[in-house]
């Protein structure tokens, strides 16, 4: 079962543009929503995370927007750079269990 749906599957953005990746979840017990970044040949690494008591969280060029009523959250990458080219995964879990369910991933390519 796909409890976390992620789109798009791939994304091509010009350097300096905004990259947007969307996720939707079904389980209302989820209350922890991280994003992971993965480079080829490496394990995923935590990028940024949010809990549902806030609607937005920003860290540098990366922002999570969260819509609890719609059960959706998204990652915005401002001023996208070629070094941001990677695969991005959204995930969700009940905070207490820390047992993450991942989306299917988005391959981002940023061209100079």
């Amino acid at each position, binding site marked *: 079962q796909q409890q976390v749906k992620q789109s798009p599957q791939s994304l091509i953005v010009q350097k300096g543009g905004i990259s947007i990746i969307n996720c939707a979840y079904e389980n209302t017990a989820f209350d922890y929503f991280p994003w992971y970044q993965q480079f080829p040949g*490496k*394990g995923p*690494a935590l990028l940024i*995370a949010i809990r549902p008591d806030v609607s937005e969280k920003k860290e540098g060029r990366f922002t999570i927007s969260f819509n609890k009523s719609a059960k959706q959250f998204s990652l915005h990458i401002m001023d996208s750079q070629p070094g941001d080219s990677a695969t991005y995964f959204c995930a969700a879990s009940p*905070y207490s269990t*820390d*047992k*993450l369910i*991942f989306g299917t991933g988005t391959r981002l390519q940023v061209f100079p």
Partner: protein
Amino acid sequence: DAGITQSPRHKVTETGTPVTLRCHQTENHRYMYWYRQDPGHGLRLIHYSYGVKDTDKGEVSDGYSVSRSKTEDFLLTLESATSSQTSVYFCAISDPPGLGYTFGSGTRLTVV
């Protein structure tokens, strides 16, 4: 990745043979997880552990077993490898919940 190592990094095995993958951590984290990564499926949880001798099944546990006799080691065993188990396997650790996972570098397993 610092504090977590997976072995082997690559393995080719024949259908029907047993295979054991090892995850070793030096962070003294309680929580450990095994995921498999496949194109179009993202990361799917196989088994997880909340402590020594405390393990449970994830969403894709059929054909896999785990053991955790020491805090630092979490072993994943494919009892009789099949071609459908060809994948990249990632181990992750966390403690306490909500601070994100640290992933290992992965094991690429090919079953021929």
